[in-house]
């Protein structure tokens, strides 16, 4: 008989041969050292294989300790929705409604808060330009890319949900491109006498508009000066904004300093550290000011609504003035046709020459410590509920990733280092906003970063709970530790003086752990482990 081939030897060892053939083989192996050696080697290989496969090299995960039940989570979801509904209701009745009321009283009634905040013009044009197929394709491609990168490490549906959510968010943001003219340059000047018959979107260091923009002007820059004319709205994100020219639409300004010295046909809104309206300024509608300091001169035909640190009124106000402020000064040249109401800590100084149509309504608020108000505790409970809810969703939807972050959070050093680095993300995001990368990416990054900031406490809280109560044995136990940890962090964060630092530490630590885990997820895909998806 010739030597055995490997296939036959394997079948023989595994008892897959007919009995007569097997007997024949074993007789041959008796006499043949070479075949005996092969059989022995194959058998040892089988043993090594079985040993490698059966060996209990890692513990069974905690969530598998108890039998799984379909729909284990209805109670968690009911609780979640309950908490979410309570939170939303409180938020609405406590903050949004009163605001809306105040806004409509202040002459902004025609547009509700949301469109107001999202500065209707830009938002609407964003939707229009969404039809721009190129942009749509770009975002979809990005989404698919993200999906491809993430699908291996995340569960399928979670990934789809996250990616779809991100795409929707990206689409909902006002995209930069579209029908408008978009410019990313170092310095931009629209010379006098020139007209742009279109919306103009600028991302630049300094922008100077001496000519005419027959459309909206949307600017991200360090310094913006308008000497010419803008026929649409002006929406500015800048360090300093000077408007000396004429604006036929609204002004929505988010800046450090706003200096207004020309006519604005409609309303003005400013979120700024310093707002100055000089005597040449004219506002056809009303104005809303959120500012550290505001000196308001000139003429305003309708209401003023102000949340201002220190405010000085010197000009004419055609409607009512409502000012919530630390200090209010009404100068001798001031003239207010409607009612004036002031809410603040200090008595207002009113010049006797000022012309007020009705007596000043004053409400002095003495700042009691927060601790003395029952509302404070209710808010603390709500805030705790919100963070708990958030943690719950993370644990239930992404248990694997949650575990990874938790593991990363146990390495304090790297976590803190990475966390401090990640804190700088907004700078990058802002750069993205102004440069070629585009507004959507920048704002998207910023939003993600905010979510990450918020989620930091969840991971640190779970770590804290674990440290105090021991490693958890199941999902329920993890949730318990999360709840306890969040309570402790909330209490510590409310301590006077050190509370702020504790909060900062928690954020840096959690953010770092999150970054580390994400980094490892991208690194730890063992390339040869699985053939790539076809």
């Amino acid at each position: 008989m010739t030597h055995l081939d490997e296939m036959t030897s394997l079948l023989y060892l595994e008892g897959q041969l007919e009995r007569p053939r097997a007997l024949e083989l074993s007789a041959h192996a008796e006499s043949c050292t070479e075949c005996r050696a092969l059989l022995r080697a194959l058998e040892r290989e089988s043993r090594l294989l079985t040993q490698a496969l059966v060996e209990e090299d890692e513990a069974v995960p905690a969530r598998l300790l108890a039998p799984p039940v379909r729909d284990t989570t209805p109670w968690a979801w009911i609780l979640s929705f309950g908490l979410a509904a309570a939170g939303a209701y409180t938020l609405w009745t406590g903050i949004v409604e009163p605001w809306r009321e105040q806004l409509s009283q202040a002459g902004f009634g025609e547009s509700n808060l949301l469109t107001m905040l999202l500065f209707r013009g830009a938002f609407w044009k964003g939707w229009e330009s969404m039809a721009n197929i190129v942009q749509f394709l770009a975002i979809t491609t990005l989404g698919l890319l993200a999906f491809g990168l993430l699908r291996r490490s995340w569960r399928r549906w979670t990934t789809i949900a996250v990616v779809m959510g991100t795409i929707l968010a990206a689409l909902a943001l006002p995209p930069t491109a579209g029908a408008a003219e978009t410019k990313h340059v170092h310095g931009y000047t629209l010379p006098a006498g020139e007209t742009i018959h279109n919306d103009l979107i600028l991302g630049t260091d300094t922008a100077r508009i001496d000519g005419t923009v027959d459309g909206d002007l949307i600017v991200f820059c360090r310094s913006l000066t308008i000497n010419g004319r803008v026929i649409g709205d002006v929406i500015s994100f800048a360090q300093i904004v000077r408007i000396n020219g004429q604006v036929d639409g609204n002004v929505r300004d988010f800046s450090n300093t706003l200096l207004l010295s020309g006519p604005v046909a409609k309303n003005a809104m400013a979120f700024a550290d310093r707002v100055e309206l000089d005597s040449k300024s004219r506002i056809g509608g009303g104005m809303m000011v959120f500012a550290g300091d505001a000196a308001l001169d000139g003429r305003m035909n309708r209401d003023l609504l102000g949340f201002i640190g220190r405010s000085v009124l010197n000009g004419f106000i055609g409607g009512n003035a409502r000012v919530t402020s630390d200090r209010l000064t009404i100068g001798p040249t001031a003239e207010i046709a409607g009612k004036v109401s002031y809410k603040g800590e200090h008595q207002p100084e009113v010049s006797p020459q000022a012309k007020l149509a009705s007596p000043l309504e004053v409400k002095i608020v003495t700042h009691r410590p927060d601790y003395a108000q029952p509302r404070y505790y209710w808010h603390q409970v709500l805030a705790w509920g919100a963070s708990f809810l958030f943690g719950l969703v993370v644990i239930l939807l992404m248990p694997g990733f949650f575990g990874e972050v938790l593991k990363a959070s146990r390495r304090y050093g790297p976590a803190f280092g990475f966390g401090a680095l990640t804190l700088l993300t907004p700078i990058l995001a802002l750069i993205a906003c102004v440069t070629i990368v585009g507004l959507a990416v920048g704002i998207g990054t910023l939003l993600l970063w905010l979510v990450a900031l918020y989620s930091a406490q969840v991971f640190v809280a779970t770590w804290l709970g674990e440290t105090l109560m021991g490693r958890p044995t199941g999902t329920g136990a993890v949730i318990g530790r999360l709840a306890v940890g969040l309570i402790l962090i909330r209490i510590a964060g409310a301590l006077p003086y050190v509370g702020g630092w504790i909060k900062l530490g928690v954020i840096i630590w959690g953010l770092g752990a999150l970054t580390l885990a994400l980094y490892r997820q991208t690194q730890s895909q063992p390339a040869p482990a699985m053939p790539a998806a076809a």
Partner: protein
Amino acid sequence: MVDARKRPEGMSAAEISDAISRARSGNSDAWGELYRRYAAAIFRFCRRALPSREDAEDATAEIFIKVQEKLDQYDPSRPFSAWLYKVATNHCWDILRRRRVRQDLETADVEDLPLEHPDPGQLERLVEERTSQQVRRALASLPARARMALVLRYYADMSYDEIAEALGVRRAFVGVVLLRARHQLREALGQRGAAGLAARGTP
């Protein structure tokens, strides 16, 4: 040989079949007993068959939910673990198929290549030098079907008939699939192992 299907510690065959019949009538304690008895084995099975730990966790939970639902269809005259592994195999194989991780490489053209006859001495040395951890790592790098075949045979201890059914190949072909898988594993072990040994400074 270690048999992963060995009877449970503290649970005799009679106790198992008793627990099964109670579980079938809806007794959750009995189901809990069965679960605790087999969960680790099934998890390990999934861990060997699927690419990631998360996949294995999910699959284990899903398999037991499936088993609980289909408990009525179980034929008590056959071993319970065999049935359990069959459900598990189908589930894992479905997952792999859905993700289309089976490479085109696995189709005929490579399968027709003749296998080189091994040198017994060399093979024995390779087997001796490699740790089970190295074997596991090498296994993870194999194509899905090769890995699945090895897991079914050497972990779940399935018969050739069962493997043929699970993988959808002819009965006569199972031996070839297994042998080919072992060759691929040897190759992976040879490469990885060689690198590992070199790193440790031994030839």
